[in-house]
C-alpha cells in the first residue's frame, strides 16, 4: 500500500470517530455519556494529528504538539467534567442533562 492510501484509510477512520462521537454527544442523555461522545471526537483528532505528523510533515514539531495538546484537552475536559457532574449530582441528585431546565427563556 502506498503511503497516500494508508493516509486515506487512517483519515477515514478518524473522520468516522469524529462522526460517531458527534452522534453520541447529540443523542446521549447522561452527562457522562455525552462526555464520552466528545472523547470519541477527540480520539479522531488524535488519529488525524498523528497521521498528519507521520505522512505530511514529519520534519515539523507542530503536528506532534497537536497530538499532545489534544491529549491535554482530553484530560482537562474530563477532570472538569467529572467535577461538574459531582457538583451537579450533589445539588440536584440528577445526572441527566435534560432534567435541568430551570434556566431558560
Amino acid at each position, binding site marked *: 500500500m502506498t503511503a497516500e492510501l494508508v493516509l486515506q484509510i487512517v483519515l477515514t477512520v478518524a473522520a468516522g470517530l469524529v462522526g460517531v462521537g*458527534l452522534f453520541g*454527544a*447529540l443523542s446521549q442523555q447522561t452527562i457522562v455519556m455525552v462526555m464520552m461522545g466528545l472523547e470519541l471526537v477527540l480520539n479522531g483528532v488524535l488519529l488525524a494529528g498523528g497521521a498528519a505528523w507521520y505522512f505530511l510533515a514529519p520534519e515539523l514539531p507542530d503536528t506532534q504538539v497537536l497530538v499532545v495538546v489534544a491529549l491535554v484537552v482530553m484530560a482537562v475536559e474530563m477532570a472538569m467534567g467529572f467535577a461538574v457532574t459531582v457538583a451537579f449530582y450533589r445539588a440536584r441528585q440528577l445526572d441527566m*442533562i*435534560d432534567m*435541568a*431546565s*430551570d*434556566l*431558560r*427563556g
Partner: protein
Amino acid sequence: MSAVLGALVLLPALTGAGLLVAGRRADRAAGPLAVAVTAAGVVVAALVAGARPRLSVPFLGIVDGGDLRLVVDGLSAVLVVLVAGIALLVTAFAVADVPGDAARARFFGFLLLFVAAMLATVTAATLPALLLAWEVMGATSFALIGFRWEERGKLAAGTRAFVTTRAGDLGLYVAAGAALAATGSLVLADLERADGGWADVAAAGVLVAALGKSAQLPFSAWLSAAMQGPSPVSALLHSATMVAAGGYLLIRMQPLLAATGWAATAAAWTGALTALVLGAVAVAQTDLKQLLAASTAAQIGFVVLAAGVGATAGGTAQLVAHAAVKAGLFVAAGAWLTALGTKQLAGLRGAARRYPGMGAAATVAALALAGVPPLSLWATKDEVLAGVDGTALKVVGLAAAAVSAVYAGRILAVVLARPAGDEAFDEEEPGTRRIPALTTVVAGVLAVSAAGLGVLALPAVAEELKAALDAEGEPSPGLGELLLSGALALVALGLTVAVVRARPAVLEQLSRGPLASWAGLGRLLSPRPAMAVGRALAVVDEELIDRAVMGVALGARRLAGMASRADDSVLDGAVSGVAAATRRTAAGSARIDTGVVDGLVRATARAFRRAGSAARRPQTGLLHQYYAQAVVGLGFLLVLLLVVR
C-alpha cells in the same frame, strides 16, 4: 491668539454653567455678572475679528476633521462681533426686564450658554464642532423659551420649538454622514468637494437643518410658539442668534448649494416665498410679538434668498442689519409689555407717545424694518435683490419688500396714534407703568445702529464689506433699483398708515382670516407621527408608555427641582399638567386616526413582539436542543462558506 478664541466661547459657557450649578444662591449676582461677561465678550470678539485666529481641540481622532476646530474668517468675524454686541445689549435689557424674584441665575446661565453656543456655531470649521454647538443652542433655546414653565402653555411652546428645530437638525447629521462617506473628511470647507449623489444628500441635509433653525417654510410655526418666552429671549433668538444661525449656515455653505444646482434654487425660492407668505402672516397679526416673529421669518427669508442666489455679502449685511432692527423692536415690545401689561396692538395704541424715548427708538427701528431710505434694511435688501437673476424671483422679492413696509406701517400707525384713553392694559400681566432708563438706552443704541447701517447703501462701504467677506465682484444695486425699492417702501408705508387710520375694519377682517393663525403651519407640523411611534412601542409593551411618560415627567421635575429647589409645590402642578396633557394628546390623536396608520403601526409592533418571542424560543433550557441548534447553525454557516465564494 487661539487662546483668545477659546475664551470667546468658554468664558460665557463656563460662567453660564457656573450660574446654573450655583442655582438660586447666585440670583442677585447673576445679572451684573452676565453683563460683565458679555461686555468682555465684545472686547474679545473685536480682538478675534481683527486677529483671525484658529483653534483645534482633538475629539474624534480617527477621521480627518474629526477635531473641534474653530476658525475666524471674514464671515465669522462679522458675525462674532454682531452676536457679541447684540448679546451685551440684550443682557443689559434682561437685567432691567426680568423680575428680581425670578430664578435669575438660571435665566442668565442659560442665556450665556446659548450665546456661547451661537459664538461656537459661527466660528465652527468642522462638523463635530458645528453639531455640538448647534445641539447646545437648540437645547438652551428650549430651556429659555420654557423659562416660565409654571405658566400654562409655556413649556409646550418650548417643546414645540425644540421638536421642530430638532427635526431639522437631523438634516445636519445626514449631511455629516454624507460628508464622511464622500470625502472622508468632516471639515466644513471640504463639503463642497463631495461628488455626485453625496453632494446632493449633504446639501439637502444642510438645507433642511438651516430652514428648520431659521423658521423658513414649512417650519415657520415654531417661531410663533417661541414668543411665549421672556422678551429678552425673543430679542436674542430673533435677531443675532438661533434664526440667524440657519441663514448663516446657508451663507457659509453657499458653495455646496451652488455645486448641486438644485439646492441653491430651492433655497432662493424658499427664502423668497417665506419673505412673502410670512410677511402676509405678519400683516394679519393682532399681537405685536407675533407680528414681529412672523416678520423675523420673512426678513431672514431674504438672507436665505441671498444664500440661494450667491449674494453672500448682501445676505450677511441683511443678517446684521436685521439683527439690530429686530432686537430694537423686541426690546421695545418687551418694555411695553412690562410697563403696560399687554402686547396686543389694540392695547398698545399710542404707546410711543406715552414713553417718548422708547417711542422714538421703536419708530426708527420700524421705519428701518419698512425699508425706508436711508435706513439699513433698505440698503441691504437691495444688495440681496441685486444678486437675483430671474424675473419671477425678483418680482416675488420686491413684493415681499413691499409687504414688509405694510406690517411695519401697521406697527407705526398703532403706536404713533394719539392715545384714546380706553386702551385695555394689563391683559396679560400687571404692568409696572414705567420703562427703566437702561431699557431705553439699549433700545436707543439698537435704533441708532439700525439707522446707521444704512451707510451700506454707499458703494464704497459696500465694497469694503465685500472685500472683508472675500466676496468681491458680487453685483451691487444700481441707483435706479435703490430708488425704486425706496419709493415702493414709502408708498406701501404711507398707504398702510392711511388705511389703518381711515378704515381700521380692513385689518380687522384680515386678522380673522387664516393668515392670522400662521396660515395653518402649526397644524402641518403636528406631533402626530411621534405619537404614532409612541403607540407602536406601547403595543409592544402596554405598560411602558405610561411609565415613560411618568418617568419623563418626573425626570423633568427632578431636573427642574435641581434648578430651582425653592418652589417644589408649583412644579408638581406643572409636571402633572405636562403628564396629563401628553396623555390627553396621545389619547386624542389615537382617537383621530384609528385608520390606516394605526393599523400599520399596530401590525409592525405585533410583528416585533412576535419576533421578540420567537428569538427567545430557541432558549429552551434543554442542553440537548442547544447542541442540536448549534450544530444546525454551524452547518448552515459551513454551507454558506462553501457555496458563496
